[in-house]
């Protein structure tokens, strides 16, 4: 058994920021990260847009162009950032959480800069910021179009500075808990195939988003919601997991998001007949809310107005925009189009269609990152941060730049809370005797399972099912039907046989373990979507066009494996914010 004071599952921006804060406040603390990747390969690196904070480094001039603010920063404030965030969250966000997020934002971003993050700069030498969809002021700070990458590499450097231990390529199988307290995890060393128990006084889940469960997604192949599975299988609830943001500008074939800023800059969406797609759906055309644009594209394709050989996408037209502007501000568009489609957007139309871009739900926590159980009570020694946590800041929609921001702000805050806890921390508790055996048994059973199905085939069907059931537009009938198909898929999983029975770097085994977990909590998404009988933010139900009472869904796994959904009222919005 390996022992640490704090064990962090996941090595993305939230996990690393949390580890760092513990080490800064409590230099003697023994902190370790366990990750199925390497820290510099964490999915955080794909976050391109930026990190939102009311720094006030640039402002709009009379013509709407961005100019340095020349020291006068009064035009933007954390309060305004909070107001924008709450408005976008459509009544589901916790105002206290949002206020905390936005107030801590400037400090959090400055700290990243002090650590050496290579942020782009204004002419005044300050951190460059740009406009973001839904932000009333230009407050999305960025490092070219690789902000997540820049922050990840900076935090990785800090791990090395502080000598924080990393266990790379370990897949965490289960949470260990006894005496109402989290005691650590059991993890599989992917490289050797050995299963080992990790004991810790505090366990932090920082496993990121769960977009990989959808067929077309911007998320990485590693974003399989492993943290959700750890909590869900331990009997803890998941909150609002049905809330998934779909982005209208997903690159055909890969689902990578093209920045929505390009619509503000005047890009057009064309259907198969080369007409503006949105003419029939929204009077603001391409400036309509992103959810409306996504739904319009889905409608247009369903109505047979799609483009291309299979009429299965629409065109993004940027040919009328200045080439230099595109090269400077949308290098990812040119790069994606050239690398994945072999086309040049300056001269050709780019095929796009809606893609899963961000996941808004997760493991419910309080503002100190402590995981809450079904009775809303904190679980001792268990924390969750970053995209896998749901602490009330997201609400029903997510502003660009707020995802990275909450990873950093709440990673830091949770780290501080853990450091304070450690000072008064008890010694290591009793590690449950059967935790290691149970995890080992799961792995061995899967390795030796006989059957006639391939794990890959079951996974393909899971992704197709989730996309069909929980796309941008959701219908009761389809949801109910696919809840059933998911049930069948769980049964089929028991018929899969792995080709690879080995122990050294058995990637097929790891993918099958991820799949078995996605099959578990995937049901929570559909069940949550069924229970949310309203349209709000990113969630659109065809039968319920209007929002109903603002409430969170809490989905718990029952003993027979089926999900049970309950509702919790969302905190009231202060009147002034409406």
């Amino acid at each position: 058994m390996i022992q640490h004071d704090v064990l962090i599952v996941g090595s993305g921006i939230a996990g690393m920021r949390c580890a760092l804060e513990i080490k800064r406040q409590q230099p003697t603390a023994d902190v370790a990260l366990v990750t199925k990747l390497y820290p510099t390969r964490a999915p955080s690196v794909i976050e391109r847009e930026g990190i939102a904070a009311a720094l006030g480094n640039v402002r709009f001039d009379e013509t709407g162009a961005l100019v340095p603010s020349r020291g006068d920063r009064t035009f933007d404030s954390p309060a305004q950032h909070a107001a924008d965030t709450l408005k976008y969250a459509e009544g589901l966000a916790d105002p206290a959480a949002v206020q905390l997020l936005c107030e801590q934002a400037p400090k959090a971003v400055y700290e990243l800069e002090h650590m050496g993050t290579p942020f782009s700069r204004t002419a005044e030498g300050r951190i460059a910021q740009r406009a973001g969809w839904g932000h009333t002021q230009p407050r999305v700070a960025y490092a070219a179009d690789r902000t997540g990458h820049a922050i990840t590499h900076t935090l990785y450097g800090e791990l090395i500075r502080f000598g924080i231990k990393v266990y790379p390529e370990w897949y965490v199988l289960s949470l260990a808990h006894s005496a109402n307290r989290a005691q650590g995890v059991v993890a599989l060393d992917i490289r050797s195939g050995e299963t080992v128990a990790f004991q810790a006084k505090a366990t932090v889940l920082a496993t990121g988003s769960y977009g990989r469960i959808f067929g077309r997604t911007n998320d990485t192949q590693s974003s399989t919601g492993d943290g959700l599975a750890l909590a869900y299988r331990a009997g803890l609830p998941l909150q609002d997991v049905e809330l998934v943001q779909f982005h209208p500008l997903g690159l055909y074939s890969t689902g990578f998001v093209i920045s929505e800023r390009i619509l503000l800059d005047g890009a057009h969406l064309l259907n198969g007949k080369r007409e503006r797609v949105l003419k029939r759906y929204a009077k603001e055309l391409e400036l309509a809310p992103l959810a409306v644009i996504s739904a319009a594209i889905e409608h247009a394709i369903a109505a047979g107005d799609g483009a291309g050989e299979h009429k299965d996408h629409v065109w993004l037209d940027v040919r009328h925009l200045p080439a230099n502007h595109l090269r400077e501000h949308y290098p990812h568009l040119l790069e994606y189009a050239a690398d994945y489609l072999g086309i040049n957007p300056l001269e050709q139309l780019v095929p796009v269609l809606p893609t899963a871009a961000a996941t808004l739900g997760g493991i419910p926590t309080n503002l100190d990152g402590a995981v809450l159980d079904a009775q809303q009570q904190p679980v001792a020694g268990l924390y969750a941060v970053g995209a896998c946590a749901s602490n009330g800041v997201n609400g029903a929609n997510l502003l660009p730049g707020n995802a990275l921001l909450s990873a950093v702000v709440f990673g830091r805050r949770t780290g501080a809370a853990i450091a304070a806890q450690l000072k008064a921390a008890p010694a290591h508790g009793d590690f449950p005797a059967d935790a290691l055996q149970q995890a080992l048994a799961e792995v061995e059973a899967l390795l030796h399972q006989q059957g006639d199905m391939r794990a890959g085939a079951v996974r393909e069907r899971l992704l197709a099912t989730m996309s069909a059931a929980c796309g941008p537009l959701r219908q009761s009938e389809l949801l109910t039907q696919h809840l059933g198909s998911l049930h069948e898929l769980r049964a089929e999983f028991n018929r899969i046989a792995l080709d690879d029975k080995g122990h050294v770097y058995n990637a097929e085994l790891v993918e099958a373990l991820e799949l078995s977990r996605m099959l578990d909590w995937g049901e929570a998404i559909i069940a949550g979507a069924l229970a949310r009988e309203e349209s709000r933010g990113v969630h659109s139900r065809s039968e319920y066009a209007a929002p109903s009472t603002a409430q969170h869904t809490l989905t718990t796994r029952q003993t027979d494996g089926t999900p049970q959904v309950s509702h919790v009222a969302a905190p009231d919005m202060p009147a002034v914010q409406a």
Partner: protein
Amino acid sequence: MNVRIRVPRFNAETDATPKFQEYTVTVTPQTTVLDALNSIRSEQDGTLAFRRSCRSGMCGSCGMLINGRNRLACNTRVVDLNNHEVSVNPLPGFPVIRDLVVDWDPFFAKDAVMLPYLVTDQPVPAEGERLQSRYDYERIDNAARCIQCGCCSSACPVQWSNGDYYGPAALTRAYRFVEDSRDTAVRARLDIVGTETGVWRCHTIFNCTSDCPKGVLNTENIQALKRKIMLTRLGLGSIAVKVHAPELA
């Protein structure tokens, strides 16, 4: 269109040499090498081991030797290889664990030697950020694009024969901090890289620059480090050394 994909099968624990195996995969114009490998693992042979994560050329997991060049499997389309036969090998010069999976430990250990974090005696400003001019930002912009995929170090003939050489990835990391206007540990890093396992092992072969999937000017950075060390030794350390970064298409 069908292509044949040839990969070595190898397990360091049991095999002395790799055996090669061929798979036939149906590809569309959009299929990347990674898509092809994924389809082999999920549809044909689950025992094929390789790494992948982000699919979009940002995480650096899937660096491989593909038809004779180090590239990322995820942003290389099969049709762009112009060949019905695709040979995929693990990054040369790295110890292989299994099939296409290499041991990253020595690579990241060398990176850590470079003090890959900001070291500065400039005080932290009480309020706001440290200022950095756009010019100074441009000086580190190219080197900061590195995703640690290993394509450069693995393309370096010196690295193949001499495993102690830090390699272009680590040296570019050193360069990124040496050139950062906010960092003041220039001398310390120049001492680290100015050794027989450091920049002096570089013979300007330019493989590392030409195989970098992110357009990082590795060889140019190493040359700039050499000039900086030389000028510092000669007492002319204040002279600026430039790397001319061409606009990327």
